[in-house]
């Protein structure tokens, strides 16, 4: 039942009227647009630009860590690179990519003509380049960019932060406003604009995961805004929220930050869960196994994500009862996450599988995200975390959930829907090359980090003891390979936009959903008359 039973009527009527008003001409099309497809494309282009910028910083980091000793950059600049790499990847690359996918696909999936609040949609996008212009400009300020890690722990980021910290805070505020408006838009669209007959439990999973993600965003982005505002007050207005010498508490910073930070990691992965739940059934030619349990699992993960934040703080000295609570709660997350993985595998089981690029990325997503989940489970064991905490084991863990998790999820989605966006098929050979080089590069870069962490290498250091040299060199080589490969993706997309084999309305024979009922490329206006879902 559920998604698979979805079909619609009246396609022909809808598209007969589409040619009345096309896009405006020139720059004003992009500056003033309220069209969800234009805004979606802008989000995706912005996200990829940031991905390359944040990636370039990762290349600087890996080049410095290629050998022991200081060769390329000094520690001050190294710390700016790790900080900016994290901030840009989280807030500039991953989050906007999913908002771009949401903009493009949510209205098409639920049979709506556009997002519910199109002007706000325009504004939420255009705030982002402003925020990142400010953030990136700190690199050129006196004293340099923020250098206290993307987690910006006080008092390193307050009393001891560089003068540019205030600009960083302003940038975070603007990003937060953008995210919150985007989330409101997603919720309003999904709750109000579904085609007649599409009940909640008939919604495609990408819609479900984004609905839940949007609630997470609305819940935690204000918390982030709160914590940076407290920093702003400490730095510029003489308060002492996080300054022990004035009666404040540096640990309070971490509690507030991670109350935002942990749901944030699910914000970066849940939409990928949704997308993969479309792609695996499509290329297995078999309905998704356990639709209902998938929905409940995402809901459970989202709820649990609010009560596990202190597992990032096992070594700060919280009382043992707190320690035990956060350990148990964190371990519990493995249950719904496991359900999702089992469901994906059960979907593939006894299917009729083909391995086009979206499927390759989706299968790699399941395997490698699960490995990241395993190391996450190990990190949840509080006593063992005393050894893992703040070592490269943690770096390996979160790169395994974010690179083959979030990023591979985004690549899988991009290849899956590129024919719908551009009207052309992408070059399958190049896309498979992109996949295999990314897959090998990524594992070469991040798997040895597990070993480094277990051998005792702390994270965020520009230079290291000699016993860590070999794996660091391997890791750097893998990172260079992964980084260079992403230029290939740019080439593939440009090629696909410019031309290629004409894509039919439904290029994947196993795909399901309303988005495949409109022609490829999707006309500028779709579903002016809502389709009917039975």
């Amino acid at each position, binding site marked *: 039942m559920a998604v698979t039973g979805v079909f619609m009527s009246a396609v022909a009527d809808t598209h007969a009227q589409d040619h009345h008003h096309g896009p405006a001409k020139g720059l004003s099309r992009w500056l003033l647009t309220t069209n969800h497809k234009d805004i979606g494309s802008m989000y995706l282009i912005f996200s990829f630009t940031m991905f390359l910028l944040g990636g370039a910083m990762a290349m600087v980091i890996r080049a410095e860590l290629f050998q022991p000793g200081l060769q390329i950059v000094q520690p001050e600049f190294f710390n700016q690179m790790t900080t900016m790499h994290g901030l840009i990847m989280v807030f500039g690359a991953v989050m906007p990519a999913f908002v771009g996918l949401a903009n493009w696909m949510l209205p098409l999936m639920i049979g709506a003509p556009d997002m519910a609040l199109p002007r706000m949609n325009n504004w939420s996008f255009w705030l982002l380049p402003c925020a990142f212009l400010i953030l990136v400009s700190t690199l050129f300020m006196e004293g340099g960019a923020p250098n206290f890690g993307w987690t910006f722990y006080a008092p390193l980021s307050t009393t001891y932060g560089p003068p540019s910290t205030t600009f960083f805070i302003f940038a975070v505020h603007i990003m937060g406003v953008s995210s919150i408006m985007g989330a409101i838009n997603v919720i309003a669209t999904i709750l109000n604009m579904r085609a007649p007959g599409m009940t909640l439990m008939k919604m495609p999973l990408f819609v479900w995961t984004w609905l839940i993600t949007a609630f997470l965003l609305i819940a935690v982005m204000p918390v982030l805004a709160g914590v940076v505002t407290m920093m702003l007050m400490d730095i510029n207005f003489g308060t002492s929220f996080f300054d022990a010498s004035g009666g404040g508490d540096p640990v309070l910073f971490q509690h507030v930050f991670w109350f935002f930070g942990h749901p944030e990691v699910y914000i970066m992965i849940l939409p990928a869960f949704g997308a993969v739940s479309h792609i695996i059934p499509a290329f297995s030619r078999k309905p998704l196994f356990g639709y209902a349990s998938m929905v409940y699992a995402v809901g459970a993960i989202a709820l649990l994500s609010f009560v596990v934040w202190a597992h990032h703080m096992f070594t700060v000295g919280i009382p043992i009862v707190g320690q035990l609570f956060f350990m148990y709660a964190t371990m519990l997350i493995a249950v719904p996450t496991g359900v999702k993985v089992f469901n994906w595998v059960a979907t593939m089981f006894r299917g009729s599988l083909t391995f086009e690029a979206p499927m390759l990325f989706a299968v790699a997503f399941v395997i490698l995200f699960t490995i990241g989940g395993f190391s996450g489970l190990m990190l949840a064991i509080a006593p*063992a975390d005393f050894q893992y905490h703040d070592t490269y084991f943690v770096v390996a863990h979160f790169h395994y959930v974010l690179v083959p998790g979030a990023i591979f999820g985004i690549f899988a989605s991009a290849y899956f829907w590129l024919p719908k966006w551009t009207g052309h098929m992408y070059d399958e050979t190049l896309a498979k090359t992109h996949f295999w080089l990314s897959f090998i590069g990524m594992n070469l870069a991040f798997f040895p980090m597990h070993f480094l962490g277990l051998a005792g290498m702390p994270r965020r250091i520009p230079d290291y003891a000699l016993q860590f*040299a070999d*794996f660091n060199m391997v890791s750097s080589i893998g990172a260079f390979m992964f980084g260079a490969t992403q230029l290939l993706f740019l080439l593939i997309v440009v090629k696909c936009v410019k031309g290629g084999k004409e894509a039919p309305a439904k290029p994947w024979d196993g795909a399901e959903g309303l988005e495949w009922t409109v022609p490829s490329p999707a006309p500028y206006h779709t579903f002016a008359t809502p389709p009917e879902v039975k």
Partner: protein
Amino acid sequence: MRVHAQRAGALLGGLMFPAWSMADWTLNMTPGVTGTSNDIFSLHMTILWICVAIGVVVFGVMFWSIFAHRKSQGAKPANFHENTMVEILWTIIPFAILVVMAIPATATLVDMYDTSESEVDIKVTGYQWKWQYEYINEDFGYFSNLSTPREQIDNRQAKGENYLLEVDNPLVIPVGKKVRFLLTANDVIHSWWVPDFGVKKDAIPGFINETWTRVDKPGTYRGQCTELCGKDHGFMPVVVEAVPEEEYNAWVAEKKEAAERERQLTEKDWTMAELMERGEKAYQTACAACHQPNGQGAPPAFPSLVGTQVVTEDMAAHIDIVVNGVSGSAMQAFGNQLSEVDLAAVITYERNAWGNNTGEMVTPKEIFDYKNQQ
């Protein structure tokens, strides 16, 4: 000539392939030398094998599907999409595994938190970028700085065996005794970690954290700061020497005596040359990380000391900054970090080095009086 060539070759080799002589492909955590670290190691191995087992089953089914259920092999898709029994089972079984894991984890954690009945108490204070160890029952303490030469870090010299993991004054503890650590920090958050002990705890300004260890095997154990604490976060190692009890007692007695001698030095009449010589050493350990060995600093965070107002004009202001620090900046209060002799020597050195030739000096006694006035 030949000797020179050999040395040059060795240096070049060391610079280009610093790692290969120490090649190390360690894959796993080591069990360490304490009860805690052994408990952690066995938890780590248990959970690792559980993950491997789950992985084998899940990926096994997946790879089977990938090989056997391919369209190109003529596979026809089945049409099932739910099975309540299976779904309940794969919710309950993982939950049961988690409960089994949680039991030993809880026991280990309770043990790690039991800091009672310690025999030696040491206060560990994190500074940017060094550790201070104070033996609170014995009334002495000292700083522990990185001792790897700058030339090795900058690749001008071959790297030594314990590159970045060596200090001037290691922490010394007796074997077979329960040692309690009280951790705090002076500036930002640091984290004190010795992997072999299974001990890691954050050192937080304004707070005191507790942890403990009992080491039975004498030896030298090395670790590092693990919480990002600024520019030289990667350069503040932890080195602990665990020694037999007699040796420990002798060492404590010697340290106490040395502390007494240091106090007496304040009374001595110092000449300019003596202060300059001592000042240069103290400057290189305490000040050079920020203000650079040549005094040029790294503005704006770390101001230059060459020809600037503070070090060439008002002496009282200079003493005040060094002793009390500048609040709201990275300049620490060195009043409690350095002895009166070192404070006087550093200030005298700064006022006369790098062409700052003021010709002025300040004596340890003056510093002593200045501190007592406050």
